[in-house]
């Protein structure tokens, strides 16, 4: 009981101070560049499969080696999700040219019913998302597991909309969470900074 309550407190403190969890860069980078097992903190250990808006199967591990900024959303959302996507576009524009092509922008839908690959393809066109964006559909299980790993809470209401946390997550090249923006306002410089810091050094 005590653990359950203290841990969120500790995490809240970590995020509130804006400090990314300490990462041991060298093993992380070598792991990202190599082909070894995923690190113990890597989200890529998740055994879940998704489908992109072109209908291709995608495992999260396929992003290994590139920094990732990831948001969970649903395409018919008229509230917070469009704002977050707009913020992600702003982050993309703000990245140094040398980094812009390295970062993957990932949107994973909560809505396993309506957000089919076709619906996601329409969303891509509507929002003019370029080739560095990956839009993912997953079955209910995969979506729930990913949300659980990210700390995203969500609930489908009976009218088919989703109430959900607004959390923008940055993963390093090894798939470890290095930064999360909580809420809707500001914090884009920190997201961009985390992405640049997370990019593996060119050799």
């Amino acid at each position: 009981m005590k653990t359950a309550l203290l841990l969120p407190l500790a995490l809240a403190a970590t995020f509130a101070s804006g400090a990314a969890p300490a990462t041991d860069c060298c093993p992380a980078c070598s792991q990202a560049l190599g082909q070894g097992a995923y690190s113990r903190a890597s989200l890529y250990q998740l055994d879940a499969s998704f489908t992109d808006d072109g209908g291709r199967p995608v495992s999260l591990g396929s992003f290994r080696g590139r920094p990732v900024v990831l948001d969970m959303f649903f395409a018919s959302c008229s509230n917070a999700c469009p704002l977050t996507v707009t913020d992600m576009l702003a982050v993309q524009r703000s990245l140094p040219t040398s980094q812009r092509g390295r970062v993957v922008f990932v949107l994973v839908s909560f809505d396993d019913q309506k957000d089919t690959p076709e619906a996601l393809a329409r969303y891509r066109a509507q929002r003019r998302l370029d080739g560095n964006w990956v839009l993912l559909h997953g079955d209910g299980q995969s979506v729930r597991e990913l949300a659980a790993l990210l700390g995203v809470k969500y609930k489908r209401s009976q009218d088919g909309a989703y109430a959900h946390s607004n959390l923008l997550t940055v993963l390093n090249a090894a798939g470890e969470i290095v930064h999360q923006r909580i809420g809707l306002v500001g914090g884009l410089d920190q997201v961009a900074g985390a992405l640049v810091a997370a990019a593996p050094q060119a050799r």
Partner: protein
Amino acid sequence: MSTAPAIAPLLFGLILAAGPVGLSAQTAGAGAREPVRMLRIPSGLYAPFTRDPKDAAQVRVSAFLMDELPVTNARFLDFVRANPKWRRSEVGSLFADSSYLADWDGDLVPGSKAPPDSPVVHVSWFAARAFARWEGKRLPTTDEWEYAASAGYSRVDGWNDQKLRADLYAWFARPSPPVLPSVDTAKANYFGVRGLQGFVWEWVEDFNTSLVTGESRADSSVDADLFCAGGAVGSRDTGDYAAYMRTALRSSLKANNTTSSLGFRCVRDTADTASDP
């Protein structure tokens, strides 16, 4: 995230409240184990504790099969024997935090603090799900769990069962005993399911749907910035203290958290739903 500060004083107050601790005799669980009995929970209507004003007050829960008892240390030992990646020394921090199976003496030794027939605790949501899958089952949804637990000892509407309410409040007022009692001591409810209430907290599949933050007792509003469309969630019965506690606990949890009084049980779909009204 911001749930913790609000509910922590409330829960700590209860944990610190002094009270008698019941210990039970151990029974050995050696040899091949009989599969745990599963009971059929007939379909029925259930009023979710929190809901959006646009949602109907009641939802229909389809019939399902539920483990009669919470998962015990003995059953969980079978699981980690068969699945080395879920042993304490093997599991990754992403899937179970550092207190995973903390009351066990070793990877394959539950030890004296975790008797074979006591409920397994210190397990994460990921571990509980992996166990359920291994048994060909799944975790219950919040609706299923709450619906099954809404029954009293002898009547289907537990909220009007004074004995259950009294037992529950007594449980809340008592600190968790250092060694949890045998599941054999758990009382059956109207459906025949034992220990759903007043025993250990239990994981549910969709624990991460609890969008409560801040002042969880009043549950007045949710920070609109943190949650999209979460602002209007209201609660059914401000007197249902136990449901508040469960909602608050669920919303404070992360999927890799493990604690000393949080276990789980499994459910399974049943094809036999036709006979219910």
